[in-house]
């Protein structure tokens, strides 16, 4: 608890944490919070704050298929939280492992891994997503694969740079001269010393991934309908956005509050980490 105190004193962390963890809570409590089944057709195109013909109250209105937007947003939070987290985690496992290996081994191993990472990084991200999804098809698993493939190289580069720095310190030399095994040096000595900057990057990347999933949904490459998906909701409402702005506005607010929360959280973490480093 004491370790958390400097974080909790930062307004950035508090606001960011409120937004991000708020959405996490919404995702977890979706079955309790959602007033209606997100897939059920009730009454099409009801405006927000209106009572429907059967006495239902639609806080955020309904879409053209008559589904309650509030319920779809709440269940959509679950979709985003699950897949964004999963995709970011898998990207991290890949990027972290290869980054540690490249940074520590150096030489030819490093050169080959860097080259591969650069090849992937040289494609525009959006094009990469589209190519991958078009080739392997749109499904939850494939979205995770696409995001992993395209963001792992960036994580790789960060981890590699930190590893090169940490590996040059004397405690790593001490471990080598004790005959410590390489994998223990990587995961026990080096990895825990990389976590500060990585926690910041993780938050930011989680936000980017949420946007990516939204973007894919908007392009029709996301989760297949009728799964509640924020990006997909924007796409479906696009045609009627002038007459019924609530179709688009609310999912957009959802996406931006989540990513804003994660960005603020990342900024706050970075400020606290920097302060810690200055003290040391």
């Amino acid at each position, binding site marked *: 608890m004491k370790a958390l105190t400097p974080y909790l004193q930062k307004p950035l962390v508090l606001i960011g944490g409120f937004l991000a963890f708020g959405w996490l809570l919404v995702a977890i409590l979706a079955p309790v919070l959602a007033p209606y089944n997100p897939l059920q057709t009730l009454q099409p195109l009801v405006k927000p704050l209106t009572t429907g013909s059967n006495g239902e109250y639609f806080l955020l209105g309904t879409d053209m298929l008559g589904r309650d937007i509030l319920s779809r947003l709440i269940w959509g939070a679950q979709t985003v939280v699950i897949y964004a987290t999963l995709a970011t985690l898998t990207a991290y496992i890949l990027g972290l492992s290869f980054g540690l290996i490249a940074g520590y081994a150096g030489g030819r191993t490093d050169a080959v891994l860097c080259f591969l990472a650069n090849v992937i990084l040289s494609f525009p991200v959006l094009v990469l997503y589209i190519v991958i999804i078009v080739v392997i098809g749109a499904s939850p698993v494939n979205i995770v694969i696409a995001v992993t493939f395209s963001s792992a190289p960036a994580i790789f580069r960060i981890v590699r740079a930190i590893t090169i720095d940490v590996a040059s*310190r*004397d*405690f790593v*030399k*001490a*471990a*080598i*001269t*004790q*005959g*410590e095994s390489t994998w223990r040096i990587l995961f*026990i*000595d080096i990895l*825990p*010393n990389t976590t500060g900057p990585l926690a910041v990057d993780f938050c930011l990347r989680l936000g980017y991934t949420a946007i990516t999933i939204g973007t894919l949904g908007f392009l029709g490459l996301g989760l297949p309908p009728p799964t509640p998906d924020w990006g997909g909701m924007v796409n479906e409402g696009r045609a009627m956005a002038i007459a019924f702005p609530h179709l688009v506005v609310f999912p957009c607010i959802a996406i931006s509050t989540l990513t804003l929360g994660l960005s603020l959280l990342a900024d706050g973490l970075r400020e606290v980490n920097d302060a810690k480093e200055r003290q*040391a």
Partner: protein
Amino acid sequence: MSDALLDIRNLSVALPKGADRPFAVQGVTLDVKPREILCIVGESGSGKSVLTATLMGAAPKGLSVAGGEALMAGQDLLTLSERQWQKIRGKEIGMIFQEPMASLNPALTVASQIEEVFILHSDMSKADRAREARRLVEAMHLPEPDRILKSYPHQLSGGQCQRVVIAMALAMSPKLLIADEPTTALDVTTQAQVLKLIRELRDVHGHGIIFITHDLGVVADIADRIAVMRRGEVVELGTAEQVLKDPQHDYTKTLIAAVPSLVPHDRPAPEAAKPALEVTQLNHAYGAKQVLHDISIAVAPGRVLSIVGESGSGKSTIAKNLIRLIDPTSGRIVVAGEDILGAGGEGLRGMRKRIQMIFQDPFGSLNPRRRVGPMIARAAVLSGASRAEAVTRAKELLELVGLERSAYTRRPAAFSGGQRQRIGIARALAMQPDVLIADESVSALDVSVQAQVLDLLADLQKRLQLAVVFITHDLRVAAQISDEIVVLSQGHVVERGPASEVLTRPQHPYTRELIAAAPGRDAF
């Protein structure tokens, strides 16, 4: 006093809330006269750097002047705005910092950096500026002034860079110079030259100089008056003679007593024991550059061999070869009868525990994320102990190196530099090695802590009959701990022998030069 260049009265600088004490500098009253070198001496955390930074108008962030004044020609420096400071710095007060390389701009030539000072503070013509810059470089006794002026900082040695920095500080002939540890980053022979230059500034040019240092040897060589600082306060102030010969305050006495003597202890003659470590004809090259030439040394159990040399002598390369972080180009390293260069894979892993190292930097050599006890126990496990044995051994070792039992569960951040070095020693000993390498292991420590760690090392080495290779740039430290001394210069062993022989009857000119350059040779 009216004739003082700078008159500091009751100066206090407050630390931010939550620090270990309320003031970084507390109630300091000092003055500096022309033609005088005032040395401010103190260990880390004494507030000496905060004091000088404040006098330069650059107090570190978070610190604020809490009271007092610093009068220079009737003007209180502490009340100046940043704009007024820019007129004072360089023109009225010259400043010299510890890291000469870091105080110079790597992208500009020496000439343009010196001339920059004239551009800022005068309206001299281009030709005048060039002439003045050359005059300054000559006054600093830099060799080949024309080449130096056209050079970039990376083309110069550390000592040359520091002289360029001094030239820049002197460009507008300020009356007062503030030098913060100006020779700490330099080799001992270079340091001797820079100190000579600084004395000349006082004697010939009449500068008043505030000289901050942690090194009492340097103080003895250079000071007219000495102020001893401890925990933000000046505990003793007097002439060099008074303070060094007849210290009044207990802290000053401790400091002076802790300065290692250049006179070696009498050591018993070696028994004819088989060497624990034998290095034969070791050569090492980085690419085409040969850095070690046919190094041969041998250390018997229970003996200490010091390798003494300046930066670039190759002494750290020897250490890296011994612990097999790098492999030599040729040669043999035999530990307890076994050739460790032949080993690879599992064999090498078994070999490593025989020869362990204590590193220089107490802050970099311990993993900040790991608890101290398990860190030491892990070393024991790697040397073949069972888990239970390892934990017991770690606890015993913590006690042996003079740390509390509660240290076991704490992380390195909870310890001071000296305590961390003790932890490093415990970690090395946990593997029960035959040979211990100490690479500048006490160089980063304050002098009083240094003495304690040296005592601990000497005690352990005798009790455990360890063969120790002690690598250092500091002749005083070598004199205290060694049975034998090897003097290394540019990768060659230029002199070797029993410590008393080498220090009292040096044969090689380089050894003589080293001993002559040792600061404070006449005082301690």
